[in-house]
C-alpha cells in the first residue's frame, strides 16, 4: 500500500560513534499530519534529516514508495519540503524572491514556471507583497512564513518542519498554527509546543534516546502522565 513516508528499522550513528537513531520505524499516510515530540537530543532532528537524504543511515526510508538513496536524491528533495528551525539558515538569498525561486530553479523548471511557482507559494503563505524584500528586515513571524514558502514552491508531497513555533510571539504563533492547519499536505512537525500539538494534530510520536517510545492518538498520549514525565514532557 502507498505511504507518504515509510521508515523501517532505521539506525544511525554520528562519525564519533555516538548513536543517534536506533531501529526507528514509522509510517505516515497521505494527508496525515503528525507531531514529533521529545526532549532535546532525542534524535528528532537527526530523523528529519534522513527524510530527504541529507543523512543516510542503515535501514529503509521511502518517500511515496521511492527509496531515499543517492540516485533518487534530486527527486526526493523535490518531494520532501524540509523547513529548518532557524529561518536565518533557511533564507540564505539576498531577497525573498530569490529564496523562494531557489528550489524550482534547481528542479530545472523553465523560467516562466519558476516565476509562477514563486507567486503561488508566496500567496499560499499570505506574503504576496514581500517578493522584493530583503530577508534581514523581516520579523521572525514573517521569516517563518517565507521559509515555508521556499519549500512550497517546489510543490512537495510532504512538508517536514523543525520547531515551527519556536521564538514566535503569541500573535505570530497563532497565525502560523492557522497556516499549518490550512495547508492540505502530509506533514511531520517536530516541536516542543504541546499546546499546538493538542490543537492541531490527532496523531503524535514521542522520541527519546534515539528510539520511538510512543506512537498514537494525541488525546490519549497527552493524558498519560507517567509516559510524559518519563520523557521529560509536561501536559499542556
Amino acid at each position, binding site marked *: 500500500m502507498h505511504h507518504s513516508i515509510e521508515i523501517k528499522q532505521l539506525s544511525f550513528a554520528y562519525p564519533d560513534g555516538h548513536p543517534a537513531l536506533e531501529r526507528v520505524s514509522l509510517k505516515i499516510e497521505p494527508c496525515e499530519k503528525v507531531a514529533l515530540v521529545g526532549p532535546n537530543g532525542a534524535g528528532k532532528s537527526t530523523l528529519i*534529516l534522513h527524510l*530527504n537524504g*541529507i543523512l543516510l543511515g542503515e535501514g529503509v526510508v521511502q518517500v511515496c514508495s521511492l527509496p531515499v538513496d543517492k540516485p533518487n536524491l*534530486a527527486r526526493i*528533495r*523535490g518531494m*520532501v*519540503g*524540509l523547513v*529548518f528551525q*532557524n529561518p*536565518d*539558515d*533557511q*533564507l*540564505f*538569498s*539576498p*531577497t525573498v524572491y*530569490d529564496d523562494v*525561486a*531557489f*528550489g524550482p*530553479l*534547481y*528542479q530545472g523548471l523553465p*523560467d516562466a514556471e*519558476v*516565476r509562477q511557482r514563486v507567486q503561488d507559494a508566496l500567496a499560499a503563505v499570505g506574503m504576496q507583497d514581500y517578493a522584493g524584500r*530583503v*530577508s*534581514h*528586515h523581516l520579523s521572525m513571524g514573517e521569516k517563518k512564513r517565507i521559509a515555508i514558502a*521556499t*519549500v512550497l514552491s*517546489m510543490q512537495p508531497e510532504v512538508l517536514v518542519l523543525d520547531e515551527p513555533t519556536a521564538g514566535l510571539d503569541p500573535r505570530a504563533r497563532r497565525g502560523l498554527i492557522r497556516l499549518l492547519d490550512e495547508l492540505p499536505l502530509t506533514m511531520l512537525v517536530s516541536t516542543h509546543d504541546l499546546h499546538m500539538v493538542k490543537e492541531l494534530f490527532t496523531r503524535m510520536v514521542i522520541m527519546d534516546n534515539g528510539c520511538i517510545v510512543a506512537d498514537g492518538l494525541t488525546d490519549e498520549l497527552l493524558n498519560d502522565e507517567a509516559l510524559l514525565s518519563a520523557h521529560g514532557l509536561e501536559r499542556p
Partner: protein
Amino acid sequence: MHVHFLDPYRPRPSLVHQLDPRIKLVLTLSFILTTALMPQGAWPVYILLLAVMISVVLLSELGTGFVLKRSALAFPFVLAALPLVFTGPGPSLGETMLGEWTLRISQPGLERFLSIAFKSWISVQAAIVLATSTPFPQLLVALRAIKTPRLLVAIFGLMWRYLFVLADETLRLIRARAARSGVSAQGEVKPGGSMLWRARVTGGMAGSLFLRAFERSDRIYMAMASRGYDGEVRMLPLPALKPVHWVILGAGMVLFAVLLAIAYLL
C-alpha cells in the same frame, strides 16, 4: 537588536533610484574613470564634473548634506599625498619655518595635491550615490551583467545576507564584553588589563565568531541541499534592457567623452 545602519541603501522615489542598476553601475564606473583620466589642474573641467555630480545628487533626492558627510570618509587618506606639497619640483610659492625645518611649498606639488584630493572627493561621491540609491540585490544583478563570475556573485550574495546576521552576533559579543568591563571598586587597580590580555579577549571573540560561522555554513548547506542544490550556481536570467536604458547609457558616455575632449583639446 539589529544593525540596520550597515545597509547604506536609502529608499527615495527619485529618477536615480529608478534607473536600471546595470546602467547605473556602468555610468558610475565610467564617471570615476573619466575623473581619473582628467589632466591635473584642469579646474574649469573639474568644476563641470562637480556640477554633474551635484546635479545627480540633487536628482537622487538623497540630500546634499548626507552625501557630503559620507564623502568625508575618504579624507584621512589625503594625508598620504600631503608630502607632494613640499617635495614637488619647480617654482616655490613660499616658505614656512617649522622649528628648524624650512618647508618649501612647491607650486606644481600643491596643484597636484589639490587635484588628487578633488578627484578622490568626487569619485567617492559617485560611489556613495550608487550604493545609497541601489538596493544590494540589484547591485548583484548589475555585477552579473558585467560578467562577474557566478561563483563570486553567489559568495557576494551570501556574504551580504549573513553580514547582518553576524554583525548582530558581534554586537551582542561586544555588549557582553562591555557589560563585564567595569572598573574595580578598589581605586588603585588599573582597568582594562594588559594589551596582551585585551588582544586575547578580542581574538577569542573573533574565534567564536568564526566557529559559529563554520557551524552556520553547515546548516545553510543543509538548507540548500534540501532544496536541490548540487554544488553548481544557478540563477534566473536577467531581464532585457529597454531602449531607453541604452539611450541613457549612450548619453552619459557622450557627456564623459565630451568632458575629456574639452580637457585635453581646449
